[in-house]
């Protein structure tokens, strides 16, 4: 078997798609998350339904015309249903959304995400655009997937601001705060798949992607990552996965790694 060539963004897109089961419902964001959702549909999940927070249920996205936002008519093309923003977000509260797909400027050891402020929120270095529906999705969807490039400045011990709740301060603190459903399911980076320890809710390595090392993970993580005694490896992207992914994004508009 020849070794396949792929970049880190493609790797994350493929790894994310693998977690999306058939017959389920996923909140797809714009960009890479959407590519992952469509990839899953083409691979193993033909009846997976994509939602957009702009109010779209089950659209039929045209390849080459991927919507740059989730709130516009390109995202609504040939949908099964259009709903108000409030109502589509409420579907999660009722329990109808299986997966949320999130990113953020920062993530911490308990999976909390920040997309509001870099630095002191009262005197921020950078005011970011804000939560959008991320706070709602992370509070209410059954399983949250976080897809991020693994960088030390992004994987921090404590986020500057919890825009989007993960396991808060760990342990039972998420449920204690009133967030009875959902939680962060997996963090998918270009180095590996990460989960959360059952009791402490601290982030832990689950599988390392082929070629990645523990050292690299530790080097690129700003907190103490829990590493299992026995390291398991992720199954490398297959030719089929890569072929379909590249059909979806022929110009690599959404699957080119950003400069660090």
């Amino acid at each position, binding site marked *: 078997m020849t070794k396949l060539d792929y970049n880190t963004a493609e790797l994350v897109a493929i790894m994310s798609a693998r977690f999306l089961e058939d017959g389920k419902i996923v909140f797809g964001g714009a960009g890479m998350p959407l590519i992952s959702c469509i990839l899953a549909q083409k691979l193993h999940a033909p009846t997976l339904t994509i939602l957009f927070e702009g109010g779209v249920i089950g659209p039929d996205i045209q390849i080459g015309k991927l919507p740059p936002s989730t709130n516009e008519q390109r995202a609504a093309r040939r949908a099964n249903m259009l709903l*108000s*923003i409030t109502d589509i977000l409420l579907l999660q*509260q009722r329990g109808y959304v299986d997966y949320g797909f999130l990113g953020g400027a920062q993530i911490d050891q308990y999976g909390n995400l920040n997309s509001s402020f870099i630095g002191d929120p009262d005197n921020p270095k950078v005011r970011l655009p804000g939560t959008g529906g991320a706070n709602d999705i992370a509070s209410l969807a059954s399983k949250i997937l976080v897809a991020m490039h693994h960088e030390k400045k992004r994987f921090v011990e404590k986020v500057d601001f919890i825009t989007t709740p993960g396991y808060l301060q760990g342990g039972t*603190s998420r449920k204690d705060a009133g967030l*009875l459903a959902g939680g962060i399911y997996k963090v998918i980076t270009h180095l590996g798949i990460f989960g959360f320890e059952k009791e402490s809710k601290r982030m832990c390595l689950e599988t390392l992607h082929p070629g990645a090392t523990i050292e690299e993970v530790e080097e690129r993580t700003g907190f103490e990552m829990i590493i299992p005694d026995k390291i398991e490896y992720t199954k490398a992207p297959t030719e089929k996965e890569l072929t379909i992914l590249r059909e979806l994004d022929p110009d690599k508009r959404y699957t080119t790694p950003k400069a660090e």
Partner: protein
Amino acid sequence: MMKSYEELREVIDKKNRGLRDKVMSLEDAIGLIQDGDHVASGGCHYSKTAMAAVWEMIRQKKRDITYSRSIASTEGDLLLVAGVVKRVVSSWFSPGVTWGVSRVMRHYTQNKIAEFEEWSHMSLGLRYRAGAMGIPFIPARAMMGSDLFPRLSDIKEMECPFTGEKLALIPALNPDVAIIHAQRCDAYGNVQLDGLPFMDKDIALAANKVIVTTERIVSNDQIRRAPDRTAIGFFCVDAVVEVPYGCLPHECYGQYEPAFKHMDYYVKLMMGRGPDGVKEYLDEYVYAPANWNEYIEKIGFKNILDATIEGRGIYND
């Protein structure tokens, strides 16, 4: 901070809600907005933005406006730089994912010239909905545990008397004025919307005054032939203004997509030169044109035709 129910009722009680002609000029309609008002805007992001209303607010030099919207895009920049808006209430504020973080939003908030009050998308929606329903709050299961919650003065938590569960109480929002753009509307203010409904219905019912800009004014007969399509009833509408292409350079579902080239031009100016770039844009595109049609003309025929072909193309399938 929240008005009492009796005060809220008093405002609505004074409205003339007869089935009467409310068609007026853009100038007169925006004249209904007063300095200091809370203005809520329909649509979301760069979709179905009541851009003509925003444009005229700037020309009329409104001041001390609080502007709320599910997601604010380039119109938020314009309102800040023009000095119209002091506070933006939203869940997200920037031109669009692919265009990066608004330099104007950063400049105004980081330097504390204006405020950006951040709510989650759903909780802002529930604020309008509670306002529309005439209740002071709706309980929800989001926002709790986050750092958004303690920064907001009006949100509360309670233990559910039925289940003992913790709930966030999302407070009602009753804007002074709603500005909403529609695909069609009759002279009385019966609004029919196509495609993505965003939060428009709730905003209209929550607001004390409603200004509707519309691609076209249709007969009341046409509305009555499909009353199940009416999204906003005449009774809450105070002004109806016919403004073709009233969202440009943003999109209007089924009518036109964004004028992307114009958006790119604007974003380059804004990201490159910040508020100064936007001032230049305001001079050329908001203050200089004699009227809305002249503004549209400046966006360019080819841009508009391309946007129109794409926009109505959603009905080609």
